[in-house]
């Protein structure tokens, strides 16, 4: 008799389970950003109207430093555009990376005055402990995103035991553009004590308003995963790569169904030190490993953004070893052909022991034409650089012309 009652209860549980699955949202296509009207290229228009080579004044890229927190070690900066046109930055700072006193800081850039506000602490170890009701040893890697309802969401990682490989992702939201934040929520994405899921690159949005968060594991395996996030919880996930060779995926959306992801390579010695690539043709529901992008990668993070008129930008260390050279690259709309637009930092001349580290870049575009970049400057400061849309297009055209001229010379 007790067995019959138990089986009836199981039947009830089964029905509830089926209803739960049935109520889950279907997988939506990617949301495409609204394409802005492409402005006329200033150089071309000037030449065609006057028939004279007039050189328009295009401002050089601006450079600032993120405000000093007084902490000797800073890292992992990220950015998001605010509704009033300002830029909010997040980064972590403390006595050293992974120290218990590390906090996540935030400051706002007034783009008109080109000045950063005084930094404030967004999250520290003790606040994370209280919000998540568990012991937390350290915090890191803040990554902001904009929810479909207009709120900000900040993903960050916490570690309770061990190094970064023991990380888990948490998220919190803000109704006031980052001035105050909700209690954090833990994202569960791994079956082994939820260990080793980290975030570095910005989320992409689905047409239904949910987020696709490129995340990665770096403990037993080193691979990318695409988390489907709804209201601070993971509701699905898909593997973007496997094994121990690719982390920190960065997603470029081609259209509502197609996307490619580029990775930081973590391959063992003797294997190609190039950028691993995966592609999806069903809005991230499945990913296939593709041919490497033939750009050197010394096991360091890559930042990228797609501009509205098609081109893509990447900032990365385009060298086999070290992080002493950082470049800005621009690629075509398919992301197949890339060229260096500007060498942002290069410490090649310094002896290898004393070379500075330029790493962990993060790129955003506010109007779809320009680009704001932040990166770690020798672990001591965070550098911010702004590239206007006009400057980017001029630099791209100049390089394209040089390439064409070189090809013509080769043919001759």
């Amino acid at each position, binding site marked *: 008799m*007790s*067995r019959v009652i*138990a*089986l009836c*209860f*199981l039947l*009830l*549980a*089964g029905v*509830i*389970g*089926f*209803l*739960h*699955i049935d109520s*889950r949202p279907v997988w939506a296509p990617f949301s495409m950003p609204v394409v802005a009207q492409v402005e006329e290229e200033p150089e071309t228009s000037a030449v065609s109207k006057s028939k004279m080579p007039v050189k328009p004044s295009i401002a050089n890229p601006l450079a600032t430093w993120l405000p000093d927190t007084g902490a000797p070690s800073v890292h992992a900066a990220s950015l998001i555009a605010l509704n009033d046109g300002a830029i909010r930055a997040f980064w972590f700072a403390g006595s050293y990376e992974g120290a218990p006193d590390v906090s996540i800081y935030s400051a706002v850039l007034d783009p008109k005055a080109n000045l950063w506000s005084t930094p404030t602490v967004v999250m520290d170890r*003790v606040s994370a*402990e*209280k919000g*998540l*009701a*568990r*012991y*937390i*040893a350290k915090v890191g890697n803040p990554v902001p995103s904009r929810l479909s309802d207009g709120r900000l969401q900040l993903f960050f990682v916490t570690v*309770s*035991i061990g190094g970064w490989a023991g990380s888990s992702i948490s998220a919190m939201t803000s109704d006031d553009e980052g001035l105050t934040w909700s*209690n954090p*929520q*833990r994202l*569960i994405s*791994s*079956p*082994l*004590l*939820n260990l080793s899921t980290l975030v570095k690159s910005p989320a992409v949005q689905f047409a239904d308003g949910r987020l696709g968060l490129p995340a990665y*594991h770096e*403990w*037993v*395996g*080193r*691979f990318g*995963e695409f988390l489907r996030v709804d209201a*601070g*919880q*993971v*509701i*699905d*996930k*898909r*593997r973007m*790569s*496997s*094994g*121990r060779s690719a982390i920190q995926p960065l997603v470029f959306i081609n259209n509502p169904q197609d996307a490619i992801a580029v990775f930081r390579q973590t391959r063992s010695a003797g294997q190609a030190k190039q950028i691993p690539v995966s592609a999806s043709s069903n809005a991230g529901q499945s*990913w296939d*490993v593709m041919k490497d992008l033939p750009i050197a990668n010394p096991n360091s993070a890559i930042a990228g953004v797609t501009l509205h008129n098609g081109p893509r930008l990447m900032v990365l260390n385009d060298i086999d070893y070290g992080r002493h050279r950082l470049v800005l690259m621009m690629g075509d709309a398919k992301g197949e052909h890339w060229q260096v637009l500007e060498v942002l930092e290069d410490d090649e001349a310094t002896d290898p022991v004393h070379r500075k580290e330029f790493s962990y870049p993060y790129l955003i575009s506010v109007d779809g034409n320009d680009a704001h970049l932040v990166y770690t400057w020798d672990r001591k400061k965070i550098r911010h650089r702004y590239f206007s849309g006009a400057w980017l297009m001029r630099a791209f055209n100049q390089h394209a012309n040089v390439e064409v001229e070189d090809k013509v010379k080769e043919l001759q």
Partner: protein
Amino acid sequence: MSGYIQIIALIEVSLSCAALIILLMQKLSPKAWPFIVKAILAIALANLFFWPLGFSLELPLAAYVRGITGDFSVVTMLLLWGALIPSSKPTPLGFKVAIVVLAIVFYPFALGLGMTDPYAWGYGSITFLIDVILVAVICGLANWTKGVWIIAIAIIAWSAHWHESANLWDYLLDPFLVIWAIGTTLGAFYRRRQDKARSGYLFRPG
């Protein structure tokens, strides 16, 4: 929503720690303890783990345990708590062996071996849910009714989003359950082997 999830999780961890301590103490004790003693002890220990103790501790003891272990699966908790009940029927060896075999296959793939991720099935695969129900039915057919109840409660807890996880795997399986299954399975085989050797000695012609 997040607030009650955190409190429930801390209560569960506190109760689980209390149950584990009592079971370990019981193992070391030569006498069987009455259920009422175990119940009082469980409540006392659970309170000790749940409430902040002050001193230099920022959090309750359960929060420190949870920081390392995460949330236990519903199956683990119910088996652990159920072990305190005197008339509790032992978990069948077949169930333990099944957990070990499942873990050996599941964890390597879930942790990055290949592009197939069985953990992702737990978010909303009907096939996976049917498989779990079939396992529960097998438990019932094998006359282990407790197993049916435990798996059914785990499915309901997942549907109700009882824990932080939205993945059914996290309500069914965790590394502690696997470690317990491996330990007790090996122990059972070792005892069987010893019994066999002993009986062989007794009946060996002199």
